[in-house]
C-alpha cells in the first residue's frame, strides 16, 4: 500500500454548533486546489459535513483525519461520545434521537448516516457504548 499524498487533521468543537462544517469546508478547498473532480468533492464534502454535525449534536465533538491518495480519499472521524447502541437502527432513514432544539435548526431528519453511506464507497462504524464512535469513510477517485 502506498502512503497517502497528503494528511489533514481537524478538531471539531463539540460545544459550538455553528462552527460545524469548518473541516468539510477546508477539505473541499484543498481538493479543489488539487484538481479533484467536482463529483468526488461533492461526495466527500457532504459525507464529512454530516459526520461533523453528528459529532457535535450527538457526541460532544472529536477529531477528523483525512488522507488524500491518488486513487482515494479517506476520512476518519473519531469521537469519545456516548456510542451508538444499535448501528443498524441508526442507519435507517428517518431514525433520529436529536433534540427538538437541533431539529429546529434543520437537523435531526435522520438522513445523516444514510447520506454518508450513499455518498461514500466504503463506510465502517466502530462504536462502543460509553467509549465513543469512529466513522471511517472512503471515496474513490475514478
Amino acid at each position, binding site marked *: 500500500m502506498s502512503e497517502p499524498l497528503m494528511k489533514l487533521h481537524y478538531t471539531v468543537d463539540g460545544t459550538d454548533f455553528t462552527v460545524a*462544517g469548518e473541516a468539510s469546508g477546508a477539505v473541499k478547498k484543498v481538493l479543489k486546489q488539487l484538481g479533484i473532480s467536482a463529483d468526488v468533492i*461533492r461526495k466527500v*464534502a457532504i459525507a464529512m*459535513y*454530516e459526520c461533523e454535525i453528528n459529532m457535535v449534536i450527538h457526541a460532544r465533538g472529536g477529531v477528523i483525519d483525512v488522507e488524500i491518495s491518488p486513487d482515494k480519499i479517506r476520512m476518519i472521524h473519531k469521537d469519545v461520545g456516548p456510542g451508538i447502541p444499535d448501528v443498524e437502527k441508526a442507519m435507517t432513514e428517518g431514525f433520529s434521537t436529536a433534540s427538538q432544539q437541533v431539529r429546529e435548526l*434543520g437537523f435531526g*431528519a435522520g438522513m445523516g448516516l444514510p447520506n454518508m453511506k450513499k455518498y461514500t464507497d466504503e463506510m465502517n462504524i466502530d462504536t462502543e457504548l460509553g467509549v465513543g464512535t469512529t466513522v471511517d469513510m472512503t471515496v474513490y477517485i475514478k
Partner: protein
Amino acid sequence: MTVKDIAERLELTLKCGEDGVGREVSGGYVGDLLSLVMGKAQSGNAWVTIQTNINIVAVASLTDAAMIILAEGLSPDPNAAKRADMEGIPVYSSEKTAFELVCELKDLV
C-alpha cells in the same frame, strides 16, 4: 439567467453575499431539513428555505448552490450573513411564501 436577474424578476431583497450575484442559476430546490437539501440540491440551484441559521451557508457551499432565497420575510441570522459574505453566497429575502416563489421560479431556471 444570473442570480441578479432572478432577484430582479422575483423582487427579492439582497441580504448578504453580494460577490456571488453574477453566477448562472440552473434548477432549484425547496426544503428546510438540511440533510435532505444536502442530498438533493444540485450545483447552481436556487434554494428556497425558511431556515436562517449559519448552517444554511455551509449547506449551500457544500452543494454548490448559486443562491439562497428566504421565504416568509425571514432574514439570515447575523453570523449566517457574515459567513455568506465571506463565501460569496447570495442570500435574499422575500415576503412571499415558498410556494409562490417556486411558482415564479419555475419558468426562469
